[in-house]
């Protein structure tokens, strides 16, 4: 595989990254102005560092923007690997399912659904085996890791059945 030749003109993803960071800098600047500062702290108030951060971000964003317009910086080694969108979508779907299911269905069920979807995205074609492993793994993680750490993660139907 050889990398597609570097375009002479702007590299759009990198230009967009530069623009995006410039946007972040603008938001930081705007929100820095919104910080309530009592006059008591006028010299060293809570706004100074935020403003300095905004300026730093803006300068760096401009530098990235220029680099993007000049053809970008992404290493050839990355550019020659096209993004496997199907895999990314399945991983994303797994995460989305997890966040939607964790409150109504509990940690274990949400984890099983996520694990099966993510494993599919990574090319596993044995959903039943994955689901079985996921169930055992999620329960072990719930009763072992989470309980040992003393963190409370959403108990659902399955956990309550097992006395968690």
């Amino acid at each position, binding site marked *: 595989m050889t990398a597609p030749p570097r375009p002479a003109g702007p590299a759009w993803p990198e230009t967009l990254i530069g623009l995006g*960071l410039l946007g972040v800098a603008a938001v930081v600047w705007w*929100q820095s102005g919104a910080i*309530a500062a009592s006059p008591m702290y006028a010299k060293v108030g*809570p706004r100074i*560092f935020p403003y300095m951060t905004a300026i730093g971000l803006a300068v760096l964003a401009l530098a990235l923007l220029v680099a993007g317009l000049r053809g970008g910086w992404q290493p050839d080694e990355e550019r020659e690997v096209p993004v496997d969108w199907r895999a990314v979508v399945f991983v994303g779907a797994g995460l989305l399912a997890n966040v939607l299911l964790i409150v109504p269905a509990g940690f274990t069920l949400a984890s099983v659904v996520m694990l099966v979807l993510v494993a599919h995205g*990574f090319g596993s074609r044995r959903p039943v085996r994955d689901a079985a492993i*996921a169930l055992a793994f999620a329960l072990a993680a719930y009763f072992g890791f989470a309980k040992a750490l003393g963190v409370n*993660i*959403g108990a659902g139907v399955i956990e309550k059945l097992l006395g968690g």
Partner: protein
Amino acid sequence: METLAALGTGFSVALSPENLLWCLLGTTLGTAIGVLPGLGPALTIALLLPITFQVPATAAFILFAGIYYGAMYGGSTTSILLNTPGESATIVTALEGNKMARSGRAGAALATAAIGSFVAGTVGTLGITFLAPVVVDFALKFGPAEYFSLMVLAFVTVSAVLGSSAVRGLAALFFGIWLGLIGIDLQTGQARFTFGLDELLDGINVIVVAVGLFAVGETFYVAARRYSGNDEIVPLRGSLYMTREEWSRSWKPWLRGSAIGFPIGAMPAGGSEVPTFLSYYTEKKLSKHKEEFGTTGAIEGVAGPEAANNASAAGVLVPMLTLGLPTGATAAIMLSAFQSYGINPGPMLFQSQPQLVWGLIASLYIANIMLLVLNLPLVGLWVKILRIPPPLLYAGILVFATIGTYGISNSPVDLVLLYAIGIIGFLMRRYDFPAAPVIIGMILGPLAEQEFRRAMTISNGDWTVLVSQPLSATLLALAALALLGPMIWRVARK
């Protein structure tokens, strides 16, 4: 003498049965996550941060230090057998180590890596033992202005000097500083950048950011590269014992690697890439077997960089413990663990918490011995871990990521934030932004602001205090040199 007495106290802490168990747990876990690609010490310690509410500080730090050291040992196994570095610090080991494995000398490569790690880890820990008190004496003279300037220097070196691009490193750093600013300003009680969301008043938890960048971002990245799952594990052949010739070719690189690694790690720059590459080129130049480099694999090219890597990992703990200055992602997360205990690392730590600090340092010696046993006779066990199918491995990492994040506040908002940061992490990987400066900026940024405002309060708002005191001025000058030097050099050469 004082140091030895303190170290003796440390051993009495570290050798308690309970702390030995924590050390064993940490080194075992550390080796495992070091072996597994996709899991690193920063991520693991972030996921384990809730433990700080459960166990005493000494136990937690012995556990974390064991993980940190263990990951350095475990990473080399993956580099040698799989040619996929288990850790970024072991990239160089893969160069010669994998070639050695392919020519049937996997056993010797693993042995020289493990023993070299032990030698360097022990040399590095000795370095911590005797250097730390010296740095502490020096650091006690620091005022807020000096601290702020020192942090600026660390910011520049970790983001601009290491890594492929100063602009991208600094962009990552400033992004992290901004994340660190979100929440209530501790000095005035004002909310900053909360966008009216109550969830953000406490700030963004470093667990969410670390897990988002290192677990979710990494999973997306590997998935997007169309994981084909055909990495070939070189079967473990040949004796694990080194021949007399291999010993005699290894011991000098071990010592040279330690000598290169520790000072670079201990500088407020940190990083393991520079010392490992430096050691690799040194060994290549000095070797009497140059023909083996890049062909059948030269043992010197494994022994030196592995030693440099472990010695620099030890070195990083010096600024972390004595100055409260983290120069790597793992150290930054350990610093946030200190904060969670209400302890401020820095020169005062050695006086206020001698049991903790010296217990931790003593446990590092013990960890090295445990790791030598774990990684040499038991290496076959870790090779089995490498056989976990990647789809399940990465999906499993996401399950742990959920626990670590959702457990903080039981709020799906944290999960959404986690995934958003994961997507940013994915883009950062794909477009060559380093992740560590984000974590360092997030942890160190608020501390830098605190020192800055203290300095300004003392000087009554006079900014020149930063450059009128010689020490602070020197540190800032070094930072400017580190930032602008390479640029000027490039222009001058044209």
